[in-house]
């Protein structure tokens, strides 16, 4: 399996995109779109919608590239954040659709982590993974389910069959614990 270019190369491309460089945009798309499409597919569970959200994310990336600040985030983090936000917005729009199809649930299945995209991401990922491991198992699963499904507190509580207040406190406690662990 080959690796996408490193984070610095992506950041340079994104800075070029902010100047309206269409070739840099095409290059950035080639390097990062498979990564982002994976995120869309995972969250939306629907190819058609995933394609639409991916398209929306990239057109927004082109228009908003000037707001990218390399000192605050890596290009891939910026792109992933933008894409996830679009995917979550889409999930909120389809609120009326049933979300409790058991085949859609990951809650009991911890998917095999795939190798990290590059050395830097791998390091960040390993730190995060180590910190997640320190959480109480049910809380860890709730955080993971929340992250990968983009579900609201309400939906998570229903899926996990716990009171809303319990779900909120699990996740809030986990987030604070993660911050302490990651910032240490």
């Amino acid at each position, binding site marked *: 399996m*080959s*690796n*996408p*270019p490193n984070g610095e190369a992506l950041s340079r491309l994104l800075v070029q995109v902010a100047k309206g460089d*269409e*070739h840099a*945009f*095409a290059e950035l*798309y080639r390097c990062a*779109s498979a*990564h982002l*499409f*994976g*995120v869309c*597919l995972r969250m939306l569970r629907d*190819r*058609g919608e*995933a*394609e*639409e959200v*991916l*398209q929306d994310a990239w*057109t927004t990336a082109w*228009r908003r590239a000037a707001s990218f600040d390399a000192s*605050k*985030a890596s290009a891939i*983090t910026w792109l*992933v*954040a933008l894409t*996830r936000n679009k995917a*979550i*917005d889409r999930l*909120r729009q389809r609120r009326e659709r049933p979300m409790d199809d058991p085949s859609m649930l990951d809650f009991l299945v911890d*998917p095999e*982590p795939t190798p*990290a*995209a590059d050395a830097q*991401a791998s390091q*960040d*990922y390993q730190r*995060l993974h180590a910190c997640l491991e320190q959480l109480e198992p049910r809380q860890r699963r709730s*955080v993971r389910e*929340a*992250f*990968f499904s*983009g*579900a*609201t*507190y*309400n939906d998570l509580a229903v899926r996990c069959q716990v009171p809303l207040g319990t779900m909120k406190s699990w*996740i*809030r*406690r986990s*987030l*604070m*614990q*993660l*911050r*302490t662990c*990651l910032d240490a």
Partner: protein
Amino acid sequence: MNTTTDDAPSDLRYAEYVLGVLDADARAAVEREVIASDAVALTVALWQRRLLPLVDEIAASEPPAYVWERIRDQLGLAAVPARTPPAVVRPGLWENLRFWHWLALGASAVAVACLVLLMLPSRSVAPLPSAAYLASAITQDNGQVGWTATMDLAQGHMVVVPAKPHAIATGRAPELWLIPPGGRPIAVGMIATGAPTTLTLDRSLLARLGPAAVLAVSLEPPGGSPTGQPTGPVIAKGAIGASPPASGKPVALWHVSPAARDHV
């Protein structure tokens, strides 16, 4: 665990926003704050840096080539030439996609050429079954070719290559039908929107292929129509034409593939 209570609740909201558990209204409120306040933007960016590495667990998946074309169209960008990507960029997959894209374009050209030939008086009455290959540009309501189909009569199979299919609604899947003149549609098989599909043509299907028959794509439940007849809307259809007579097989199509394969 003892950090639960003494943290500023506001920071927690930004963490919840990044994690993705807030409802639409709460998300919108955070997004307004991000725009209004650099401090909030920084807090959110910090949470993104903490949590987003988790996406490394998600397997990458190449989007269909038409997504890029739609992005380009939407932004009104010039057709950026398909530069050879640097070696680090998954050469296999990328070249593969380009390969299929060109294959689709080639097949469209062949299909269009066939239709032109069919309109010529001498051609329109010529018997088709002598041709080794048939082709069809399965065209959508907007006039764009959604798929191209090439039928190999000798081998008894059909390759359906997506060109620019529309996005398919949730819970629906495209199914291909052969409609003989004056007859009921016959199911050929489910087809993909992001990759070529190869379908087997049995004898009864082969016997019905001809210039008067039509290929059509309808939207069905993912496993296919439960009734054996189309139950959803027809989203694309195409006439069936012979391949160019001079060579007896679709020149453009097979001309492209060996060269493209070298890159794979």
